[in-house]
């Protein structure tokens, strides 16, 4: 048994275990911690598949940013866990059934479907050298440059929408009041003063 296979078996078992813990555990903070563990395991497995850049990105961006965001939200909300806990068992048979059906279907489909796949069926036209990050950067900034810019716009959209959603009304701030501005009439703004009155 080679070292690669040993690493694969260890981290895949850990990944399945932590994914199960994410959905079973009642406490949301613990679930977030187990989600971090499963991201870490899958980063190791991505390293085995020569995706170095993406595994580092998964650790830095996901564990470092998105999961911290999850933890912040979980800790900000004061959740009453008691009524969440009691009906957990009711849906367990349904969940188990769904899990077994989907897992069996996918495993039977994938088991021998791609065993004869040729590793070099696609000509290695994209491979510049052995540096994964350099190759990805080259592809990203030449062939996929428009998609890359659209990804930036999507991130900007995320920033703007999450800020506007969570912004609270504060009376110290100055806001526009479009409703009042539209409904204004001429008499509100303009006052005609007769010439004689003005002279008095």
């Amino acid at each position: 048994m080679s070292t690669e296979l040993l690493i694969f078996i260890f981290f895949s078992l850990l990944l399945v275990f932590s994914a199960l813990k994410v959905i079973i555990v009642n406490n949301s903070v613990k679930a977030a911690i187990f989600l971090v563990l499963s991201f870490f395991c899958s980063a190791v497995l991505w390293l085995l598949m020569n995706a170095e850049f993406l595994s580092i990105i998964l650790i830095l961006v996901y564990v470092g940013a998105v999961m911290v965001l999850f933890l912040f939200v979980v800790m900000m909300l004061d959740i009453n866990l008691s009524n969440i806990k009691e009906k957990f068992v009711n849906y367990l048979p349904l969940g188990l059934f769904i899990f077994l059906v989907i897992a069996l279907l996918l495993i039977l489909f994938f088991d021998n479907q791609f065993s004869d796949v040729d590793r070099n069926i696609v000509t290695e036209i994209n491979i510049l050298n052995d540096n994964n990050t350099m190759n990805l950067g080259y592809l990203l900034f030449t062939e996929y440059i428009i998609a890359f810019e659209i990804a930036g716009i999507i991130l900007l959209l995320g920033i703007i929408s999450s800020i506007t959603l969570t912004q609270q009304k504060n009376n110290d701030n100055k806001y526009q009041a479009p409703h009042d501005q539209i409904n204004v009439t001429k008499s509100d703004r303009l006052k005609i003063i007769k010439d004689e009155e003005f002279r008095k």
Partner: protein
Amino acid sequence: MIPMSYYLILSSILFSIALAGIFINRKNIIILLMSLELMFLSINFNFIIFGNFLSDLTGQIFVFFVLTVVAAESAIGLAIIVVLFRNKKSINVDDIGGLKG
């Protein structure tokens, strides 16, 4: 060399765990979002597996974009949960029936 089917079976098990998680945790909407993250992880797994075994880097490019979109999605989703909790004082899925859908 590890056979491709091992990786594919692992990712399908991960996907079905996440799907079962959506059915089991029908009360806590935050764990629903975490199950969604697990689902996206298994999809990314499939992209990387096929990209690696066909010697094509396009799979990894797609994973990059999926990660971007998922980051924006989870940020907006968590913002919606914060607003919802501020208004309803609960994150139970049953209490969120305001639209009568």
